[in-house]
């Protein structure tokens, strides 16, 4: 996408706390109207990015541009973005109505307009009947909605959400995830969501930025991030992955190579970029990319033969760990087949394993013990 449609832009931002550099020469561009998620483990700098956009922190160098205006030196009260805090930070001495009206009062919006806009937004988050309650009289999910209402009533260009669902229990979180997404479509506001929960990131986002130790790892759609992770960190942080070390032997054509896996299996792999013979690579296989068959059914098809070390019934899937003769363990996850309800393995049973060719993802080798 072109730069023109960027509603938030960070260019070459460096941020230090005390002596510690949290972000260095960091750049980011968030498109107008998208649901953008910053995903990473704690301490990766994701919250700092959010706070830089909100205006609670100021960059040591670099620029923050919101809606085409350089706001690098402006305080949070002067930026057209609003934040939904992890703790919700509702004003305990004010009613729900007054909490939501706060931003409008600060902007000196006319009394009658405040009335109607607050009502409208409370209806939207299904809290129309709760206007006169105090925050302490609300449940966690309701507080969450008040926090969202309090932010969106100001019609910000961008809504920033800091781990906003992490305080809720699992069921409620799932419900709020879909509500958030729905709300975002309905309002057409850009959402910037910060989380360490990869499942949440995958299910809600248009695009995800994966962060690690202050460094951006990959930006892409959930599908790109999941199916074509750019490096081992992204692959292992998002979902489970089997990592096989391989060496390219020769190219068959532009994207197919003969490779030696784990020093002993010669197989054909599909890559999305060019490699030279002798290059070290990782072959990444998601558990659901693997196929397991009973030895008697497999015949002498090419594949691995290994022993089932563990099997775990999850309801929808059967997750197994298969150990290959050299000790390498592969994790697989298979959906149940309606036609074969009893399929199951016994521990230590020898089985045939292969992956669905073309589903593997190949990346250049990294030193694992970095």
């Amino acid at each position, binding site marked *: 996408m072109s730069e023109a449609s960027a509603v938030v832009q960070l260019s070459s931002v460096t941020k230090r706390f005390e002596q510690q550099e949290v972000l260095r020469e960091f750049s980011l561009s968030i498109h107008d109207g998208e649901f953008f998620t910053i995903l990473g483990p704690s301490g990766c700098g994701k919250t700092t990015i959010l706070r830089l956009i909100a205006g609670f922190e100021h960059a040591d160098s670099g620029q923050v541009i919101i809606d085409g205006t350089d706001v690098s030196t402006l305080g949070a009260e002067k930026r057209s973005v609003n934040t939904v*805090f992890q703790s919700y930070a509702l004003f305990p001495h004010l009613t729900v109505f007054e909490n939501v009206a*706060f931003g409008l009062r*600060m902007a000196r919006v006319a009394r009658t307009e405040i009335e109607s806009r607050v009502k409208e937004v409370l209806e939207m988050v299904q809290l129309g009947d709760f206007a006169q309650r105090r925050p302490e009289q609300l449940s966690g999910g309701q507080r969450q909605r008040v926090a969202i209402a309090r*932010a969106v009533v100001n019609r910000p260009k961008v809504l920033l959400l800091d781990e906003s669902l992490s305080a809720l229990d699992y069921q409620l979180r799932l419900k709020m995830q879909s509500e958030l997404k729905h709300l975002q479509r309905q309002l057409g506001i850009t959402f910037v969501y910060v989380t360490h929960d990869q499942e949440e990131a995958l299910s809600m986002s248009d695009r995800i930025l994966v962060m690690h130790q202050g460094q951006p790892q990959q930006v892409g759609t959930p599908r790109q991030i999941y199916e074509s992770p750019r490096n081992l960190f992204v692959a292992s942080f998002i979902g489970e992955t089997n990592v096989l070390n391989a060496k390219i032997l020769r190219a068959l054509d532009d994207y197919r190579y003969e490779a030696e896996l784990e020093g002993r299996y010669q197989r054909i792999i599909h890559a999305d970029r060019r490699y030279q013979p002798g290059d070290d690579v990782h072959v990444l296989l998601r558990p659901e990319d693997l196929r397991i068959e009973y030895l008697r059914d497999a015949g002498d098809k090419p594949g691995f033969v290994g022993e089932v070390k563990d099997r775990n019934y999850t309801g929808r899937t059967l997750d197994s760990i298969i150990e290959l003769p050299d000790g390498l363990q592969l994790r697989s996850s298979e959906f149940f087949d309606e036609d074969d309800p009893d399929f199951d393995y016994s521990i230590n049973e020898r089985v045939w394993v292969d992956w669905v060719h073309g589903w593997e993802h190949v990346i250049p080798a990294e030193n694992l013990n970095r």
Partner: protein
Amino acid sequence: MKPLSRLRVSGLSGLGLLLAGLVYLWLYLPIMLLVMNSFNASKYGHSWQGFSWKWYEKLWGNSALIEAFTNSLTIASLAATGATLLGALLALSLHRYRFRLRKLSSGLVFVVLMSPDIVLAITFLIVFMALGIQLGFWSLLIAHITFCLPFVVITLYAQLRSFDPYLFEAAQDLGAPESAIFTRIVLPMLRPAIAASWLLSFTLSLDDVIISSFVTGPGYEILPIRVFSMVKVGVSPEVNVLATLLILISLVLVCLVPWLLKRKA
């Protein structure tokens, strides 16, 4: 299992009740005697000679005592107001700003809190004499404000620390400048603690004898000192009446403070 344990608890609580009763008797017997004596028709509290309001009437007629009482109330309310204002400023700046010597300045507050009254009293006296301040109303007021200040700072600072720090950021995020954050968020949320600090200062000031006796002059007499000089020549029934009234006032204040603090959110 259940009935047994309940039995034990009730046995224990019977004993506990007795002990608690004894302790409260120990605490309140003198006060009860004093209150009773304020209604005793006898001039000397040795025997009960019938119910009477006469000491109350006599107190009402004792203009010197009444004047000392009004002086005390004046000093206490002014000192409480001054200490609350100054203390609030200090607590807010300790909480809001990260300045150099912040640790030191909060530590200094505790020093005043921990100092024995007699030390403070002498210190005040030396300062007032050095500055040439006439002992009387102003010296008394300044001293009272000073010894109430640490209690205010500690109460308010603790309350500020208990607030979610993101509240202030949330207000800023919603477009509130510093002044609006203060008037619309900090101040309303702090109001119960401010009231509590005021009442605390008020009572502290009202019953101070040691410091006051050093820093006041003959021109401005306050109640504790007046009473103190009165009882030197024997307890007058009027003093009983006065004490009863003061107990009543403290009782009201004691009930008010926790109620105010509980209403914080």
